[in-house]
């Protein structure tokens, strides 16, 4: 620590003032300075507009909206410049969340700040959509006022902010017991009574005082996103998993939470694996607040969760999947005597028999100009349609149990079909959710809260795998 006298002003050069242009100096200032923050709907309606520095007027919003709507598909919209103002925006919940700056600020900082703003809005308002932002605009103004002063980020921690936020959230959808019925995480359709209702985690963190007495719940979600490319010969070309452990906490006072992961969890490529099927991740990183003193030996994470949602651990696995890929596709493309294209698809789900994939949709690119799809599907709950705009056939399967196999036959009329057109039946893309399943096998052994919460506290652990991008070449 420097003593009083040591912290001094260094040599100050004078006499240059007024020579250089104001804006030029402004651009040189170190530090991330946000000039304005605004939230627009996709139609351009202003929901929130907060000017921190008075450097530009309200017309900046219109300048932004005009340039963002004028972009063609290939131009990156994230950073745009109008006169001497840079606009950085993220799109979430169908809204534009925009920050403008005059400095050459750090893009990572501003993007992360906007992401944090959306996360806080979601924490405080329950959901992230136009309706909830409209209903809670006073609260969002209040949040912004505490988060940023004169364009400088002050704090974004829920724990600190909740001391200052006075406005009560208006939940756009009242929390009702009906929501508890049978909806799983992220709208998953499950009948399991043990699965927490998805709506439970979409209520504001600050429960209206007096109502329900603030339900004491904590949700720990293990969420994995799977990115795969499978070659036409069935060989896995690429398999990446991005995973995270996300905690959503409604407990007003929770001093410490201990999360136990699989004991056999190994980290890094070089580490020797234990007995065969140990769970492994390549890289992992933790939230700043996580204590890791028991992690190396017992694989226990200690964290003091603040109210709201936070990601406490992120991990990645590259190129080496511990389990077989969840789906295999066998295709055969034929051309019959006329202008008809025949597409046989056999899709196999290689999950363990107890689990199932839900909301599976398969998009098969077809030659341009294909018309009149006729289909043969194996069960009535499946659907398939030809989307001429996307040049694709979309096949949807609401529920697909592990270990089963589905067949489909699509016949299409393609005027002017040639053998080269078969090349257009390109890589097949799949979207799905795998509830109660992690591809890495990462599990939460236990979840302990200290001090032990009085009776009513509920702890939920949920697992889900999403398809980030699942491509199968044909």
């Amino acid at each position: 620590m420097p003593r009083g006298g040591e912290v001094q002003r260094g040599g100050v050069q004078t006499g240059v003032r007024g020579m250089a242009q104001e804006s030029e100096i402004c651009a040189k200032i170190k530090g991330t300075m946000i000039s304005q923050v605004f939230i627009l709907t996709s139609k351009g309606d202003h929901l929130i507009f907060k000017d921190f520095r008075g450097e530009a007027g309200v017309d900046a919003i219109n300048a932004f909206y005009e340039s963002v709507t004028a972009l063609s598909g290939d131009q990156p919209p994230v950073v745009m410049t109008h006169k001497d103002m840079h606009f950085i925006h993220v799109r979430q919940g169908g809204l534009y969340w925009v920050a403008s700056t005059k400095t050459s600020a750090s893009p990572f900082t501003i993007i992360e700040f906007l992401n944090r703003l959306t996360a806080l809005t979601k924490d405080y308002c329950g959901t992230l959509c136009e309706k909830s932002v409209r209903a809670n605009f006073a609260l969002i103004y209040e949040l912004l006022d505490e988060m940023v002063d004169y364009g400088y980020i002050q704090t974004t921690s829920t724990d600190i902010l909740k001391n200052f936020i006075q406005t009560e959230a208006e939940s756009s959808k009242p929390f009702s017991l009906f929501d508890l019925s049978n909806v799983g995480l992220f709208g998953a359709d499950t009948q399991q009574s043990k699965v927490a209702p998805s709506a439970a985690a979409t209520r504001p963190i600050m429960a209206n005082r007096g109502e329900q007495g603030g339900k004491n719940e904590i949700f720990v979600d293990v969420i994995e996103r799977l990115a795969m490319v499978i070659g036409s010969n069935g060989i896995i070309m690429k398999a990446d998993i991005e995973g995270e452990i996300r905690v959503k906490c409604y407990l007003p006072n929770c001093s410490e939470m201990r999360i136990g992961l699989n004991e056999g969890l190994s980290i890094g490529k070089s580490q020797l694996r234990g007995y065969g099927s140990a769970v492994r991740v390549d890289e992992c990183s933790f939230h700043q607040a996580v204590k890791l003193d028991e992690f190396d030996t017992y694989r226990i994470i200690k964290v003091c969760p603040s109210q709201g949602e936070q990601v406490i651990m992120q991990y990645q696995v590259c190129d080496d999947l511990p389990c077989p890929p969840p789906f295999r596709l066998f295709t055969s493309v034929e051309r019959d005597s006329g202008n008809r294209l025949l597409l046989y698809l056999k899709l196999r789900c290689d999950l363990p028999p107890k689990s199932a994939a839900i909301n599976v949709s398969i998009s098969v690119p077809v030659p341009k100009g294909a018309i009149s799809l006729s289909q043969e599907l194996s069960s009535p709950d499946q659907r398939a349609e030809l989307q001429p705009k996307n040049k694709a056939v979309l096949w949807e399967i609401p529920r697909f149990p592990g270990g089963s196999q589905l067949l489909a036959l699509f016949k299409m009329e393609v005027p002017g079909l040639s053998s080269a057109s078969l090349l257009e039946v390109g890589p097949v893309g799949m979207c799905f959710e795998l509830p109660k399943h992690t591809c890495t096998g990462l599990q939460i052994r236990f979840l302990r809260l200290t001090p032990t919460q009085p009776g009513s506290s509920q702890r939920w652990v949920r697992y889900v795998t999403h398809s980030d991008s699942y491509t199968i070449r044909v």
Partner: protein
Amino acid sequence: MPYLSTEETVKELKRALSNPNIQSDRLRYRNYIMRVIRSMTQGLDVSALFMDMVKASATVDIVQKKLVYLYMCTYASLKPDLALLAINTLRKDCADPNPMVRGLALRNMCNFRMPGMTEYIHQPILTGLKDKASYVRRVAVLGCAKMQSLQPNAEIDATIVNELYGLLRDPDPVVMVNCLRALEEILKHEGGVVINKPIAHHLLNRLKELDSWAQGEVLTFLLRYKPRGEDELFDMLSLLDGLLHSSHAPVMAATLRLFLQLAAPHPAVQADALEQARGPLLATCGSQSRELRFAGLCHVQQVLRSQPAQFGVHYKRFFCGYSEPAYIKFRKMEILVELVNDENVGLVLEELRGYCTDVSPELAQAAIAAIGRIGRTYSEKCLDILTGLLGLKQEHITSAVVQTFRDLVWLCPQSTATVCQAVEGCEESLQDSEGKQALLWLLGMHGGQISNAPYVLESHIDGLKTEMSSVVKLELLTAAVRLFLLRPAETQDMLGRLLHYCIEEESDMNVHDRALFCYRLLECGLEETRRVFQGPKSDPCMGVLTGCPQEPINSWASKFNTLWLLGASEVVPASSDTAASDQPAHSSQGDALAEAVDEQLSIPEEGQQSPDLSLGAPLSHEAFERHWLELCVTHREALGFQGPPSASESLQAALQLVKIQTLAFSRESTTPWKAYLYTHGSGTLILAELLQDESEAGNSSTGLVVSLKQLPENKMAIQEFVSVLRTVLQTLTKDGS
């Protein structure tokens, strides 16, 4: 709600706010205030309600207070006289026992952007700086900066500045960071906050207490600090080592930038830092937030320009996701092209091949262009794929493939035979003018090898009446004349018809004149025409541009983690001195050179301005190539030096010192030796080619020849550029001998 015009809304709100019944009902009153704010957000001018809102500010309801303050900050500059009425309440709040109320009042009072505010806020700020609640101190510190901005021309208050430097030792980390920010703004005309050794070490020691936003901010301020010696530098870096692996992208990026800039003289340290940050950087490229993904990709792309091998093994991370937005897919394809190597080329091409049939024509065309770029190195494989795509007979695909073919033939003459075979029969599915131009160019240049060339050309000539694009017509004229030179017997008749039509009936003057020119040239005889129309069929030397040397890390380190990397256009053209101060220190050899060059430059007689060159916005290879092909040579001069300078790297370093950027150069012993340079100066962009061509007999005495192209033209700048270039070369040859 019925639609109300602004005036009616304001009237209605005014009536409600002044209604005593409503005023007494707290909730209803607050609701009306919310409606005022809502109208304000929507862009209505509700400044007429200022008086009523001032009244509403005297309340114990904090929510209402906050809303009113928000209103007042917005309109204070419009109604300065009325705003003064609110100041009393605010000043009273500044002495409230509740720190939250004190902070709130002080913050908002400082936010009133109107002249004359200073005298009211000066005292509360000074009191606030000594407040026992850190919340108030945070606000007061930034208040100092706001106060300064209210009167930009006033003298800097030395007591406040000293107070702020003192508060750097405040126990609250946010107060400390706010001090840095406030000092930076107050002292901006003097170069910002001074980071001397004690302050730097103090900041480094406290880094651990800060939250990630503050960490990122402090790391940015530390960029200004120059460690005294290597020991200190390495101590600093080892302290920061852990932050390179931070899971918070802003901290990781700020740390990496600091590493790159501090370690400018130690390339090995820079490389090591990039290596360490590779994992986190790749993680941002797979982040759930698309925008963060994009930022990560842009930074990866920059790193690749210096270290192409860095991400080679991770190429699969850059395969496009099925549902990603187009702008991310474009970036990923650009990256894939750059990290192709012998091992992964097959798989990368297979992946790119899949994108060529994408539903978005722009994406498909970009994928085809990407394959074309890879084809400059791996021509055989790429030609197979591209030829296969022609079979699809889809307009946009064929057009892109033909354009790619044209570029490939120009750069890699060995692919000519395959291309000529492939383009036969693809003319039917070409509709857009770019594709037609490319095809016509190929027909004219290589018509000898395309058996049906005259027929294709004839069909174009027959369809001339319906052709809309004059550029296509110009290309058609050129192609027809060129083909005539190659295959006169088959082409003569149609060339005659074409010229006749264009001279007699064409309304576009450009086309008409070009046709007339061709006609008169043909009258001069075949030899003359051949001399004008038949240039080289390819320019493998342009390949230098693609097989470019690695960009030195120091050329972009200062741009790392800024918006420029994400494609923000540079607003303020950096004048040469700002560019110089931002440049990292060069190696000692470079410094010696710089001094030598400076000496040379200072010799010219008094009064002559030193050339105003600057590095300005960096030019991508594609942009350079485009400009180079578009512009014509404005100036060509033999410099009289024999042979390329001894070491190309030292040439590059020396040119960088005089603000000339080297884009690409060929290896030392090759002939012809070429280098491409560019610089910005006096509002123009200068592109230059240095050529040492000893193979041409009889011409060997000229030595190094410089050709300049310029946008827009400026003769003065050219003179200056040449003289600077000459000086640099002189210094280097002197050094070498």
